[in-house]
């Protein structure tokens, strides 16, 4: 790689964070991996971003897959309406 190309990579946090996101959910090319490595070697901010981003993914995963987190409650009025609709439908089906 040319020197000015390396300088560009070193500054480009936009691209680095993009590659971080892609790498966490999929894969990036060898060249992209090298670019990211060069960038992260000199950019402490993007290293923080990367760790925080990975932990956000973990949190989102838990939120979507963990049944044990607090169950929300539908209000009773709406439940009653739904029950009525279901009963009505069942009666219609009988006839």
């Amino acid at each position, binding site marked *: 790689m040319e020197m000015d190309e390396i300088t560009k990579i070193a*500054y*480009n*946090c*936009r*691209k680095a*964070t*993009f590659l971080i*996101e*892609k790498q966490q*959910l*999929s894969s990036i090319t060898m060249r992209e991996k090298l670019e990211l490595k060069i960038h992260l070697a000199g950019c402490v*901010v993007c290293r*923080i*971003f990367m*760790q*925080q*981003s990975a*932990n*956000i*993914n*973990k*949190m*989102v*995963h*838990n*939120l*979507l897959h963990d*049944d044990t*987190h*607090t*169950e*929300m*409650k*539908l209000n009773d009025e*709406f*439940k009653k309406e*739904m*029950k009525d*609709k*279901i*009963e009505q*439908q*069942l009666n219609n*089906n009988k006839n």
Partner: protein
Amino acid sequence: MLNNPQQTQSGGEYLIDPHQWVDKYADYLYTYAFTRTNNEDKARDLVQETFLAALEKVDGFESRSSEKTWLTAILKNKVIDNYRKASSGLAKKTVSLDAGAGQTDFFVPDYNNWRPEHVPKAFGLEDDCPMLNKELNSILQRCLQKLPSQWLAVFTMKHMDDAKTEEICSELKVTTANFWVIIHRTKLNLRACLQRNWN
């Protein structure tokens, strides 16, 4: 079967009893829908639609799976339908890596380094074992609610059951390039929102 709610499970087969659905599953399904749509009204409607659609399909109920599993599968399809609607129109637009109009650009144009006011700061979330506590979780949920619905659709679908990117792109009619730009923007905004609200 329908008219015998008292009948109990036998031979490992599951029976179906719509009279009990609301009491047994409404809260569970509502929570499921809400965590994926971040919209209370939408979640409520989806639960109701699920019950009504299920009634139509009662004959096709496979007694090998539980009612809960079966209803959840119906709801999941409804959630995906909802994502599809939210992202319609996305296909026609090309989303560029730069922030669009009206959006926060976290980076300095041309130079592409962080703008000073948007530099990510260490606040605990970067630790190996961060405090993944209730408070942080509820901040996360509030931050998710602030996302544009198209972004939320793409982002949640990718994290929902590790679906293949190509499948999501074709379901939501998004190009692969746009897909990654949306994932990137979503994360930039989510992270910034968490930092802003965590002290």
